[in-house]
Structure formats: C-alpha cells, structure tokens
C-alpha cells in the first residue's frame, strides 16, 4: 500500500505541481493535482487521496480554509495534510497547524525531506485506517452476537429476547407480591397486566419459532386468490376500525381460479396487513387519514402480485436494512421480529419474492410475487406434490 499511495498535490504554481508529480511518480506513488482550493476540495472527493500536499496562498479558497474544511468532515478528517508554503514565520506555521494541517514545510524545501515526511504520514494514515476498520468490525460483532442473527445461527439473539421477557415477568410478579403485602389493588392490576403481556409474548415467540423452523412444502390446491385476500381483509377489519384505519380492497377482476397454496398465501397476507395496521397505529401524525390498501394483480408473465400498502409511519434506512433479520422489531418489544422473516420464507418456498418500498413518515408498500398456475392448464385434480 505504501508505495502505491495516492498523493493529491495542490498548488497554483504549475511548475511546482509538475516537478512534484514527476518526482513522486519516480518513487512509485500515484498522484493527482489541483490548482486552487475549490478544485482541491472536489479532488479529495473524487480521487480519495491518502495524503494531501497543500499550498497556502491560492486563488478562490486558500489552503487554510481547505484544511479547516477537510478536518471538519468525518470522512476526510483522517487524511493527513502537509502544508507547503513560503510563509516561514512561526505564527504562520502555528495558524496552519491550528487549522488542522498535520505538518508544515517551508518553501523552498529539500525534496528528500518532503519525501520522508510523505512516507511517514502515509504510514500513519494506514494505521489509523486499520484501527477504524477494527472499530467498525467490533461494533458489528457486538450487534450481531447479541441481536441480529437468525435462529439456528446463534442462540444468543433468542436468549437476549427471552431475557427481556423474563425481566418483564419478574417485575410483574414483584408488583403482585408487593400488592398482596400492602393490600394495594391498583398495583395488583399493574403487576398482573405485565405478567399477562409477557406471557403473550412467549406464546407469540413459540408460534413464530415453530413456523420458522418447520420445513414446509407448499400445499397446492385450487383456490381463488382474490377470495383469500378478501378473507384477510375481513379478519383485520375489526382491529383497523378501532384505530380509524380504512382497509381498501383493490382486486384484479381478471384473476380467476388458480392452483396455489391458499394457507401460505393467507399467512403472508395476514402478516403484511397486520404490519400495515401497526404502521398506522405507530404513526405519530394524527392529522392523517390512515388507509391500508390490499391490491391483487394478475401479471402478463404468469405471476400474481399481492400489494399491501399503508400511509403510516414508514421506515428509515436503518430499519429497512434490518427488515428481514430475525429478532429485529420496531414494535417496542411487542413483536418477535420473525413475522416478516416467515412471510419471506413462505413466499420463497412458492418460488416467489417479496420486496419493500418505504418512505419515513409517508408509508410502506410490501409486494409479493408468486407464480400463478391457471386451473385449466395445471391438470384436473389441481393437486401436486
């Protein structure tokens, strides 16, 4: 790395730039150049140098300002800067170093000295970068080992989830105990609510785990995809209404009877619609009129598309990245973080896919596509292994 290091040479004097370019090329470095401060800042982004040789007196933006700006950004502050200047007075040097330069060489300089300093600072940068990588790696390890890995890959995530439930249960039991001692019925109710809520979480966890760990082949049979979607809407109607959320059905009339796995589809859609309702409930924008739209589309290429969209809270980038990771939930401990994973599993077992589109504060759309087998073309019985 050291002898292929990239040097950005910044000087408004073309001769200096040419001379330095030649010399450093001869030593095996890669170089690029800029002739004023503005170009320098642009080059740092495009060229991503390992070190910058920076003149101070330049048109537009001077070297002091360039240095100050680069050292204020997280992604450029670790690039070493050597200032080259004819300004030989001590206060000038101090000003340069104060504004973030790592080293200061007075013109005219001895090339060999400059070369030694470049070598030194490139080594420093390599070390800093190694340390940065190590830190990022450690952060990643920590998060992964404690929460994000899927079942089977690590029991640690499961343990983490159960530890939280247990603490909730212990707290509930403690409150109930105290309530008995003090004859305090309010506290009794609080404690008991906590016990019940955490028991519910254990049941949910067990069901989701079983679903996720089970090898399940799709059970193909004759069915009407629109009817399945309709049934899911009916099932969720009640809880949606409670929070003034409207469920809109938008079914493709050209969709007929097909040979698919109705139970699997039902499970997927129920998961997605429940999620969509939750996204509206968690939305803090009270002025919205919340809508969950369930759409079915028969596509030209023999695929069925199910779309479930909501105008609820939406997701940020971080959440989107972790969507299909086990035990990740944004439902404040209320979800197991396995629902979407299961939906994805079922869709994939069908030879299908699931995709998501989401804007923070505006809502999300989940799309499942699965192969559609027309009854007419897939045999009279409609049963398959």
């Amino acid at each position: 790395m050291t002898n292929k290091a990239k040097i950005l040479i910044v000087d408004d004097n073309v001769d200096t730039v040419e001379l330095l370019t030649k010399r450093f090329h001869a030593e095996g470095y890669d170089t690029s150049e800029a002739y004023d401060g503005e170009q320098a800042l642009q080059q740092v982004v495009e060229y991503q140098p390992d070190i910058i040789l920076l003149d101070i007196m330049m048109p537009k933006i001077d070297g002091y300002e360039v240095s100050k700006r680069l050292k204020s950004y997280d992604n450029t502050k670790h690039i070493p800067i050597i200032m080259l200047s004819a300004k030989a007075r001590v206060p000038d040097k101090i000003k340069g170093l104060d504004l973030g330069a790592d080293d200061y060489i007075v013109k005219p300089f001895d090339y060999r000295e400059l070369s030694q300093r470049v070598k030194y600072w490139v080594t420093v940068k390599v070390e800093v970068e190694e340390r940065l990588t190590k830190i990022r790696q450690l952060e990643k390890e920590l998060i992964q080992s404690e929460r994000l890995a899927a079942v089977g890959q690590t029991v640690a995530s499961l343990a983490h989830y159960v530890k939280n439930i247990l603490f909730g249960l212990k707290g509930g039991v403690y409150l109930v105990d105290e309530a008995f001692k003090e004859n305090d019925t309010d506290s009794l109710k609080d404690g008991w609510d906590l016990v019940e809520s955490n028991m519910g979480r254990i049941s949910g966890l067990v069901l989701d785990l079983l679903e996720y760990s089970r090898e399940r082949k799709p059970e193909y049979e004759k069915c009407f995809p629109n009817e399945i979607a309709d049934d899911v809407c009916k099932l969720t109607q009640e809880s949606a209404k409670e929070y003034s959320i409207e469920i809109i059905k938008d079914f493709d009339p050209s969709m007929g009877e097909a040979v698919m796995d109705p139970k699997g589809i039902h499970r997927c859609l129920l998961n997605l619609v429940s999620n969509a309702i939750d996204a509206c409930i968690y939305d803090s924008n009270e002025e919205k009129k919340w809508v969950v739209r369930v759409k079915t589309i028969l596509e030209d290429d023999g695929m069925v598309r199910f779309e479930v969209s909501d105008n609820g809270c939406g997701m940020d980038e971080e959440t989107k990245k972790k969507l299909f990771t086990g035990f990740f939930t944004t439902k404040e401990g209320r979800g197991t973080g396995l629902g979407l994973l299961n939906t994805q599993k079922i869709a994939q077992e069908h030879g299908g896919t699931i995709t998501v589109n989401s804007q923070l504060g505006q809502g999300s759309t989940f799309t499942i596509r699965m192969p559609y087998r027309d009854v007419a073309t897939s045999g009279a019985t409609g049963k398959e292994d």
Partner: protein
Amino acid sequence: MKKVLIVDDDVDIRKVVSKLIEKSGYQAMEAKNGVEGMGKVREDKPDLIILDMLMPKESGIRMYHELKTEESLKDIPVIVLSAIPKKSFLRSQKVLDEFAGQSVPEPEAYIEKPEEPEELIALMKKILG
C-alpha cells in the same frame, strides 16, 4: 422529589422499571431510545439514569459515551440495565475510548437482565440515598 430516567425501547421494561422507581419514592421519566433520552436529560436533568444498550435509533452504547463526555452531564450516575453481558459492554466502551482519545469511566452499576427487581431497587436507594 428525585427524578430517575429509564431509557429502554421495550415498552414492558419501561413500565416495570417506572413502577419500581415510583415504589422506591422517586419520580419516573421515560425515553425509548438514545435520541429521546438525551433530549429528556438536557431538558429535565434527572438524578439517575437507567440505560438499556441495544435500542433502535441511538443505542445506549453511544448515549453513555455522550453523557460521560459532556461536562454538565457527566456526574449524573448511570445504571446500565441490559441483556448484554457486562464483558461485551466494557469491550465496546474501550474501543470507543480508544477512538475518541479519551477515557470514559465505568457506569455506577451494571445489571444484566433478568436480574431480580429487588436488586435494582436496592441499587437506586444506595446511589440516591
């Protein structure tokens, strides 16, 4: 009345800990992540912070570091309450220290979930008197 802030993304844990805080004779404040937590700390300085580690948005790892490196906040005692083993926490803090070039003290106490609620109450009383 002394104020205790619980920062945890899990709504049940917040509920349990709030009840324990109130039972111990203090006023409970709640926040569900590091961002909200720092906001509450600045706006209404608590006398003690009980802090979870893994939360969406800003984690407790970051929030702890922020607290301990801000002059006006660094003296607020912190009890870390997390399902993460203490060893892992200390390791991550060491790395952050090295990176930031300054050393941050260990928390007043570290409780690994699921610890007995009595333990948390005893600790709060010991710290707040």
